[in-house]
């Protein structure tokens, strides 16, 4: 199965992906200790009414972060071939 690489901010509500890497070292440190580690499954739970921030399910809890921060998280999604 091939994988599609995206950033977290590009996902839709309910979509699940696996964290692969980070593009901002500084924000990555905070995200890592909050349990967003490579290999973890992350799911978009909801988007705030004004379109930002978003809430994600990760490591068994609900985390909110801004879209700009989410865009620093690279995730991989399984590609469905039809």
């Amino acid at each position, binding site marked *: 199965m091939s994988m599609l690489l995206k950033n977290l901010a590009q996902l839709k509500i309910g979509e699940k992906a696996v964290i692969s890497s*980070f593009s*901002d*070292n*500084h*924000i*990555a*440190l*905070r*995200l*890592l*200790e*909050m*349990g967003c*580690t*490579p290999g973890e499954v992350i799911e978009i*739970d*909801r988007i*705030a*009414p*004004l*379109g*930002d*921030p978003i*809430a994600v399910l990760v*490591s*068994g*809890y*609900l*985390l*909110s*972060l*801004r879209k*700009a*921060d989410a865009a620093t998280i690279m995730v991989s999604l399984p590609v469905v071939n039809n």
Partner: protein
Amino acid sequence: MEANKFAVNGSDKKSLKIALVGNPNSGKTTLFNALTGLSQKTGNFPGVTVDKKSGFIKLNNTVIAEFIDLPGTYSLYPKSLDEQVTYEVLCDKNNADHPDITIVVIDASNLKRNLFLLSQIIDLKMPVILVLNMMDLVEKEGDTIDNKKLSEILGIKVISICARNSSGIGEIKQALLEPIVVPQYDFIDVKKLAPEAISKIAEVVNVKSNFDAFQIINNFHQLNFFSTRTEDKNKIAEILTASNLDFNSIQSQETVERYKKINTIAKECITHKLKAKKESFTHKLDNILTHRVGGYVIFLGILFLIFQTLFFLAALPTEWIENFFVSITNYSSQHLPKGELTDLFINGVLAGLGGIVVFIPQIALLFAFIAILEDTGYMARVSFIMDKLMRKFGLNGRSVIPLISGVACAIPAIMSTRTIGNRKERIITIMVTPLMSCSARLPVYTLLISLIVPKTSGFFNYQGLVLMSLYLIGFIAAITAAFVMKRIIKSTEKSYFIMELPVYRLPQLKTIGFTILDKVKIFLFDAGKIILAISIILWFLSSHAPGNRFAEIEKKYSTVEVLTTTSASELNYKIASEKLGASYAGIVGKAIEPVIAPLGFDWKIGIALVTSFAAREVFVGTMATIYSLGDSNNTQTIGQKMSAEINPKTGLPKFTVAIGFSLLLFYAFAMQCMSTLAVVYHETRNWKWPVIQFLYMGALAYITSLFVYQLFS
């Protein structure tokens, strides 16, 4: 300072220092409340304004335990002042609060993320106990955690509790009396991440473990305690430069390694019940509370309800307290011998005390509401739905909590801005928070509103509506000021907002109770002291005058002509009023009258404005003193006395709508709080900020009051 390790108290008594550490929302404070109960007290960690909650409990006849509730943190890499305190207390052996035993409190329903902090503490090699809290949530999910296995793998004692129902508390107390294991292994091997630097640092300073050295590498600029010698510091700086390490990278490697091990531990110890995926209660409630329309309607509705209820519920107890003080004042003036001391007691001490105690119902209720919003998890949702809006004004979703707390008191609110990572957003939040109407303004508002706004019966009343508008005006002023500052203050730092949304829980009576108790105590003893002192000083200033001015006034009114043409009570009033004008206080008030006259204020209000600088609520005490001096029998409340005051020029009541609103807005905007300015300096470490704050808020208050008074009169 007493010694850290098992300080001997008397002959065979032992005292233990026990620190509670954990992630935010781990239920650490609930456990602290359950352990210490009413013996807890709030103070400060030395040198910083971070709240330190501690409490002493007798574990048995010989051992006394001092529990310290450390600020919540996600890791030992401090990103805020609060986290820095936790870090220093744990890592610095010579810190006055360094514990003999550390209890790590974990939200068991969120095991993996919570174990991260524990894994770092294990590597500090100190006596540690793990407490799995919120076991009720785990059971509700149908999951099980293998306690014994977890304890075996981690090599430390593990206790399951549910702090909310106080279950497992006895077990913790028992465990503290037994020998505590010091982990003897490294949770992960940090040495391989920076082998050379770690061994070189170990040669310069005395470190307990590789992780200590690793901490020095990563937190070098924040560390003062490993070695205070500049010589050593220079050596370490040299080592670090020579090592050419990428600090970001080794820290992320450390974190990833820890989580890898935690994941295997979690797999071995947690059994998840296989279940059909259903929507959780929190998810369903979030659908409503963060709805794009409903979410905001509910938020406004909650605020509306709070302020209506505040006025409605506080009215009766406030009246009781007022009546109580009126009756002891009457009793004292009838039964105590006449003289200077009695006068001081009645018009200085009693007037001041009454002015403080009367606000306890409102303060208690307001903090009860704030505690409920925090405790249920709703506050985090408010940040979530408001972040984008707040960002437009140079603020942060996390600014909402300081701003809302500012409604209670700007001091804790400004202290709570430490959770805002971005410096510019934090400074702006600090600068505008005092514009939110704090509880010290509430007495002033209440008094003035009762003078100028008619009372209507029922739950929905005009007075409540005016009060709510004042809070709204404060909020609008705050975000407008923020918007202006956003343009002025320069910053290159990146802004981020990463926050946990805790599961919804029912608020706990105990937590609310302790919050109320805590805040009322602070108000009574901290603010109260200042208010009482000022009301005594004021009594002196207003009952004494330079030279023999008073004697002259009395002489003037003692002529036969005056005595036969005026009634006794009218005469007394005239003398008292003229004496006040001649007193020291009158002199100060009259001196500033030309400046404040365009706002509709006379010298009596002038006196109150000056004394309010100590704390706003002093306004009411000052008015009480000024007006009780003008009255020979103290049977009326201050409000009644003020509304009975006649303007000598017009013959109409002095407190007109114009003066009332002018004063209300002046108090809404002016920076009349020494303590807040002191805290702003403390938090920003720069006098520039409190000075700017004082000036811009003063200008705003003067201009608005001028405008309103000229418009209405």
